[in-house]
């Protein structure tokens, strides 16, 4: 495990390792100035920097492909940046290391942000991002494990990530392994019953090595969640299914970092983080706007967004 970026309060190799895992390609891009040695010593500053880069880069991908789900990319960007630059112990040069922390991207439609963070973390060259959704690209509209290192399971249909992540966490539980399993779902996605099956099993087995992060942007594809099939009181639901629940601001890097990097040892329950977010966060005309679930920008919109994302 020496080669992983370690968590706060974790092992000695900490900050130095963090600097080492910063992928070379990222430093070369014009949309980020991240990963200097200084920033690497302050995970939250690094995370903030990466989150901005993810927003910019994913929006560029969506603009160029004229396809994508930028609203959900933006609500998830801070969560993804925190995971990949502050929390996950992973080694891009050995993406199937049995001891790695797992991250399952259940909201598989948000490949803009997901591919961007994987590239930023060094799983594949940033240049590959320009092939997003192009013919024969490995950057499919939804992530494919057999195309790209860093993808744990193929997602796209909602409600698949948590059940698979539960299985991964059970493997870790059986082996008494150190690795943690994280999964990010949308909130509308929780209307799929498959999640509640897995919730029961994870609660029953007290999978403390499993962390679910809910991107609680309160919007699904066509409308607000509470107007469609209301999820509140969402915290009570998870508690009643045997989970420990924390509610936080999903755009607050420090709050995310602290909640996610805390050791799960002794919690005795799986952890559900309800991350309150906004769809389209970061760009004024996309903010909390359902039209941007799968909207794609025209030139003016793209340019305005890039000005705002600075």
């Amino acid at each position, binding site marked *: 495990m020496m080669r992983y970026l370690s968590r706060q309060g974790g092992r000695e190799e900490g900050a130095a390792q963090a600097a080492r895992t910063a992928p070379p390609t990222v430093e070369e891009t014009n949309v980020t100035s991240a990963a200097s040695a200084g920033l690497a010593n302050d995970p939250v500053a690094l995370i903030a920097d990466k989150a901005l880069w993810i927003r910019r880069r994913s929006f560029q991908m969506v603009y160029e*492909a*004229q*396809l994508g*789900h930028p609203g959900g990319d933006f609500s998830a960007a801070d969560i993804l940046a925190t995971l990949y630059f502050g929390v996950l112990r992973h080694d891009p040069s050995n993406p199937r290391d049995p001891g790695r922390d797992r991250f399952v991207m259940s909201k*598989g*439609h948000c490949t803009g942000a997901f591919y961007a963070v994987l590239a930023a973390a060094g799983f594949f060259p940033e240049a590959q991002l320009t092939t997003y*959704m*192009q*013919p*024969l*690209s*490995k*950057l*499919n*509209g*939804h992530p*494919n494990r057999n195309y790209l290192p860093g993808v744990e399971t*193929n*997602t*796209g*249909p*909602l*409600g698949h990530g948590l059940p698979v992540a539960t299985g991964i966490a059970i493997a870790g539980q059986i082996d008494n392994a150190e690795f943690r399993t994280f999964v990010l779902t949308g909130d*509308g*996605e929780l*209307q*799929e*019953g498959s999640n509640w099956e897995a919730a029961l099993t994870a609660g029953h087995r007290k999978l403390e090595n499993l962390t679910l992060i809910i991107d609680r942007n309160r919007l*699904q*594809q*066509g*409308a607000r*969640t509470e107007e*469609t*099939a209301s999820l509140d009181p969402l915290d009570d639901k998870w508690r009643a299914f045997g989970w420990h629940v924390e509610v936080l601001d999903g755009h607050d890097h420090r709050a995310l970092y602290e909640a996610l990097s805390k050791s799960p040892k002794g919690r005795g329950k799986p952890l559900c983080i309800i991350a309150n977010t906004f769809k389209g966060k970061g760009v004024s005309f996309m903010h909390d706007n359902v039209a941007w679930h*799968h909207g*794609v920008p025209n030139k003016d919109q793209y340019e305005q967004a890039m000005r705002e994302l600075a």
Partner: protein
Amino acid sequence: MSAAAPQPAGWHDCRDTFSKTVEALAEADPRIVTVVSDSVGSSKLVNFRKRWPERMVNVGIAEQTVVAVGAGLANGGKIPFVSAAACFLTARAMEQIKADIAYTNVNVKLIGQSSGIAYGELGPTHHSIEDMAWLRLLNNLTLIVPSDPWETEQAIRAAAALDGPVFIRVSRMPVPDLPRSNARFEIGKAETLREGDDLAIIANGVMVHRALAAAEALAAEGIAARVINMSTVNPLDEATILDAAKTGAVVTVEEHSVRGGLGGAVAEVLATHDPVPMRILGFPGFLPTGSADWLLEHFNLNAAGIADAARQLLARK
């Protein structure tokens, strides 16, 4: 989900026909309701919701339940049109379709939107190229794959008039209006769109206009290809297939896996009644990244590919 592709003039997205027809039916019959799983926009039902908000049931992202609620609404005297992306409506709710719909034999209309590979770049999880194989063996369930706006409207009207379960594939891929001299739609009856005795091309859905174009190309070489639109897959029009067998060669074309779908259904009829050489054109399985148009070209599911297959088959006849 994917951005609207620019549509050639005179080509149509049959989802528009679906919503227009359902609205017309709903005007006349208060029992008509729509049932969706966060699929209002993708089903083109925004206007329906505006007109009859109380007659649209949105269960959220829950395909098992969208189907089961449809079954319940039928029990309560409604005529529900359950509309969701074909890939999820079938795969995620297969047991509900089997038990609650087909086996219980209820008056529910399932609309599989953006069927086939219409979601192109969104990948195999969003492609529905298994649905004909999955559904055509469920008794009671009428299965229709319309080819153009006219037929989509006819299929939806016929489904509403039929007291029983129906599944209709509705594509978002733009298609032209097909030339028809004697337009008449009947569930379970195939339509011969072009006569010809050298071979028969049997297609459905978005492949029919491509089959007609292939026949046109073959005609220029003196090959008379019959073109049959097999829009109903269950119950299957075996008589028309057996008549096609008399040409001595059959090509099937579908926006579906080459296994178990339209080609499989035709192969079963031919092999057990009148074996003649066949080609089955479709997709090989999980597909690489690419737009719908790109995938159709890449896998030769176009006029040229169909004509090629026909020529090769004739050599074996």
